[in-house]
């Protein structure tokens, strides 16, 4: 799957956040978006993930060069994980199963898939615990498990390691890289850590003054 955003404009209260922004995301890569606080990274992710509409411009997903409609079917091929995950007041397992359930998957298949996703992030042994009692690092990993369970082709991660310690940060970075390798998904994440961007990203984009100013291809890993 590919994504092209073209001529995106976004204003909040007469302040221009994104101004005529155009970019194409190819499949099977990790993009890391950087930029100062308040520059519009989260806004850009929300717009790309079809959660929020731009004031002008187009967001088009392509599957084998065929443009997809921005309907719920397409929305279900992508996902956005926010810095604050938003955990449902129920078990770790039921949280992981949520996206599968809303897609109408059968019970047995849900069980298998959700457990696989929890195992992927190393949380399978906590599946019966109430998810609100997880630590921040575990919560973040549950957020990733919940999102990857339904095998999205585009995954937006907004600061996935904010408020996470060093060990969990490394763990999450490993999960992100493994995710790309095993599913071929496109991952677009934001971070404030330059080191992390270099460690994880195939490409680093810098948003500055309402536009993507530069893109840096990091070395092959």
């Amino acid at each position, binding site marked *: 799957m590919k994504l092209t955003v073209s001529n995106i404009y976004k204003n909040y209260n007469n302040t221009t956040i994104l101004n005529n922004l155009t970019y194409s995301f190819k499949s099977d890569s990790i993009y890391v978006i950087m930029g100062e606080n308040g520059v519009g990274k989260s806004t850009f992710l929300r717009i790309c*993930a079809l*959660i929020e509409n731009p004031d002008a411009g187009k967001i088009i997903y392509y599957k084998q060069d065929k443009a997809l409609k921005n309907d*719920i079917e397409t*929305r*279900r091929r992508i*996902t*956005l*994980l*926010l810095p*604050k*995950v*938003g*955990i*449902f*007041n129920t078990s770790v397992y039921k949280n992981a199963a*949520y*996206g599968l359930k*809303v*897609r109408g998957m059968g019970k047995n298949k849900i069980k298998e898939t959700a457990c696989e996703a929890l195992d992927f992030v190393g949380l399978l042994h906590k599946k019966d615990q*109430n998810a*609100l009692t997880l630590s921040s690092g575990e919560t973040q990993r549950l957020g990733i498990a*919940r*999102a990857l369970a*339904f095998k999205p082709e585009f995954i937006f991660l907004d600061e996935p390691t904010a408020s996470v310690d060093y060990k969990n940060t490394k763990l999450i970075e490993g999960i992100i890289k493994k995710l790309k390798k095993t599913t071929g998904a496109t991952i677009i994440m934001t971070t404030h850590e330059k080191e992390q961007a270099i460690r994880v990203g195939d490409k680093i984009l810098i948003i500055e003054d309402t536009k993507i100013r530069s893109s840096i291809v990091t070395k092959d890993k």
Partner: protein
Amino acid sequence: MSNPFLKAVELIFSFDKQLFDIIFLSVKVSGFALIIASVFGIPIAVFTAFKKFPLKSLFINIMNTFMGAPPVAVGLIFYLLLSRSGMLGFLGILYTPYAMILAQTFLAFPIIASLCHSAIVGVDPLLKQASITLGASPFTTAATIINEARYGIMSALIAASGRLFAEVGAILIVGGNIAGLTRVMTTAIALETDKGDFELAVALGIILILISFTINFSLNIIQKKGKKELI
């Protein structure tokens, strides 16, 4: 010298018919009122929480205000409405359990609507975002939010039932405390004491206190459960 307390206990354990008829009527009247108020109150709370409509905040304010409506005044209003010359006089239900259910429904409705509304809008907005980003339809997202408000909704129902069981003003005025017909626990206690039927009053008092403790105890547990799981 007979001890009214002992006699009351005796009444309870001998399953005195008069006593239990009164208890059952209380449960019936307040129970039906609670069900009817929930059937209307919960959907209205959901609607108010998710939809914009004209004068919405006025509506919410009115519900909040009516939560504390004095039962005696509500009883008086329904008495006037239901009396022969009143607007609802044609129903002919004054001094029947129907009138009591109607008045209590009116008392419970704003409590349920208002508290359920608060519970739903109090759900963390992050959960709405999470639900959408996980591919839920708007309908499923709303259902998820209501489910997250479940402890608040249960608390609202329990709080309303506490008020109904303890309430005497409204049901006394529209029911009339007629023996065997509209006499319920609170009205019996209020009016039978001085007629010498001490044992009955004390027996009813014991049962009423037990019911009220049970209601408050479960409210406490539900609220704790909601909190514990939310931290």
